[in-house]
């Protein structure tokens, strides 16, 4: 029965998405309760799978029992189990938030649709992480990008449509590039199953290097476009800032990470470390990551809209993960995975707390945050915590990421990137600190001296607090994550 759990998760998610439209629109509460129950069940099973693969080892799931040469295959190993667990945990917490803050620009008629999209999103992400097949990844990726795009355009505003259009177009280009890479690999190996392709690529690497080089380029650039790696981040700031608060958190914290996870799979499971090192891809990735860290922060400084600023900050933080991947060592990958967690949590907190501010006061301008800390101490307090994490102050998970990334870079003989980490910390401070200072130390015209309560629904403040607690927990005792991440890293051979 345990072997069936992954597919049961997928079916459950898809079925829920299909069942929601069958409910009457008035019974919105039913939808929410059903959604939460399903999410909780999937969460439990993801947790159990994580425990299972870490104790008894990885296993395959074959659709219809066909052999992997022609059939589809899911691979559940510590890596995929860990990231499905990450995705579902974070999404469940953000879901709780979204139940209270669904009003952020979404028409009442669309509430049900929003949750349908959320479930299809989750379904696609689970599929991407579980699947062991390149073409299947493509299909799930397309489902994911359409769904994401629909979530962006669910707010009926001018900017949302433009952002969604740009998103869908660039993502489609990314997907097609990826598919082109798959086709080139299929041409020389004859398979789409990742492990078989890996074998084939190693065999034909000497005979058809051109095919493999072009495949690698197209796949990496395509995924880079979808993962918003620096010069290809064009769509991200608009898309993430236009989306409703809770979905901005989902997009920045989870969805972008999923593409990075595919990138890791493609680099280390499909091509293998020897080929990508021979192609100098790691050093290229490192340079791109470093440039992204600096430029993302540099653009973030200039933003007036706080959600756009957070979007650019995501671009910078993705640079960290790319840098970690580019180190192409188990230390580097370990910290890249850790940062997926760390940034996921921190960015959710940032987006959600900003969402709470927008919910209560409708403040989107960076300069409008004067004295807001007295009116919403909990939200802005958590914002502060996460922002300090972004800067890299100890006791937050951001410090652990930065510290270990520095160690990994130096260990891999790339000590120059430590300077990038420092520069990024300072740049992050330049745009986060004024907001915090204004929020807590500047006077507001309303002249609030005394701290008052947040006055937002409990369901909104609870998720922020839970995630904020996570920042500190995994920042103070990172072994919780590192133990899991280490077993995930060990599924890749270096």
């Amino acid at each position: 029965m345990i072997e069936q759990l992954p597919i049961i998760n997928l079916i459950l998610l898809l079925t829920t998405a299909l069942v929601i439209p069958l409910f009457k629109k008035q019974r919105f509460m039913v939808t929410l309760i059903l959604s939460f129950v399903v999410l909780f069940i999937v969460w439990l099973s993801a947790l159990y799978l994580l425990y299972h693969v870490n104790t008894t080892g990885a296993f395959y799931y074959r659709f219809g029992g066909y052999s992997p040469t022609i059939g589809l295959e899911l691979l559940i190993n510590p890596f995929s189990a860990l990231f499905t667990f990450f995705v579902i945990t974070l999404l469940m917490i953000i879901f709780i938030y979204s139940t209270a803050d669904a009003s952020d620009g979404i028409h009442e008629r669309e509430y049900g649709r929003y949750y349908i999209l959320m479930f299809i999103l989750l379904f696609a992400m689970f599929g991407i992480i579980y699947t062991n097949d390149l073409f299947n990844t493509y299909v799930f990726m397309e489902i994911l990008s359409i769904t994401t795009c629909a979530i962006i355009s669910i707010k009926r505003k001018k900017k949302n449509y433009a952002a969604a259009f740009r998103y869908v177009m660039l993502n489609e280009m990314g997907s097609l590039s990826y598919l082109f890479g798959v086709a080139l690999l299929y041409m020389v190996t004859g398979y789409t199953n990742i492990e078989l392709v890996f074998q084939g690529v190693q065999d034909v690497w000497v005979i058809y290097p051109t095919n493999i080089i072009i495949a690698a380029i197209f796949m990496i650039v395509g995924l880079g476009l979808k993962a918003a790696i620096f010069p290809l981040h064009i769509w991200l700031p608009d898309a993430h800032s236009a989306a409703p608060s809770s979905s901005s958190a989902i997009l920045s914290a989870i969805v972008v990470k999923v593409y990075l996870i595919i990138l890791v799979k493609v680099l280390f499971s499909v091509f293998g470390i020897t080929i990508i090192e021979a192609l100098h891809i790691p050093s290229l990735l490192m340079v791109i990551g470093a440039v992204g860290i600096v430029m993302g922060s540099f653009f973030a400084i200039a933003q007036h809209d706080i959600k756009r600023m957070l979007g650019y900050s995501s671009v910078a933080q993705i640079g960290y993960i790319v840098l970690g991947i580019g180190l192409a060592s188990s230390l580097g990958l370990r910290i890249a995975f850790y940062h997926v967690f760390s940034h996921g949590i921190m960015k959710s907190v940032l987006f959600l707390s900003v969402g709470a501010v927008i919910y209560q006061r409708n403040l989107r301008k960076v300069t409008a945050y004067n004295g807001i800390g007295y009116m919403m101490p909990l939200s802005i307090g958590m914002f502060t915590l996460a922002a300090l994490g972004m800067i890299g102050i100890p006791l937050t998970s951001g410090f652990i990421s930065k510290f270990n990334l520095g160690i990994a870079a130096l260990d891999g003989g790339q000590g120059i990137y430590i300077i990038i980490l420092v520069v990024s910390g300072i740049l992050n401070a330049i745009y986060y600190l004024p907001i915090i200072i204004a929020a807590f130390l500047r006077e507001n015209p309303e002249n609030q001296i005394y701290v008052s309560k947040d006055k937002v629904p409990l369901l909104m403040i609870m998720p922020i607090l839970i995630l904020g607690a996570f920042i500190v927990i995994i920042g103070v005792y990172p072994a919780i994550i590192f133990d899991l991440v280490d077993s995930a890293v060990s599924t890749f051979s270096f």
Partner: protein
Amino acid sequence: MNDIIVKSITRLVIPFLQLYGIYIILHGHISPGGGFSGGALIGSSLILYTLVFGVDRAQKKFSHRVSEIAESGGILLYLFVGALGIALTGNFLSNKAAGFPLGELGSLLSGGIIPVLMIGIGIKVASTMITLFHVLIQEESQ
């Protein structure tokens, strides 16, 4: 389009189109074609109806609610049949391994669960096409 020729020919053609679509769906497992192509045929027949007789009449024949249910229902059928494989001690979408009769090669009743899956896909594709078309048309008319 208030053209009598178009209207009459459409009335004539649509049953054949739909019949052909059903034929393709049902023969999906023994000849080229299948749920997608057949569903697309049925869907285009409905689009043709909409084009000729207008959205309002088409909506009466094939309302939004119906297409919503058909969309969900088609894929749910697929999932249900696939999940039967799990129930019958196989994997998801198991065919022979779960004990479905495969029948004789070349006959209509063969291929285990594949014809059923094809029907599900056909419903889904047909209803999706018509829904999308209606949505697009209504957006413009608004």
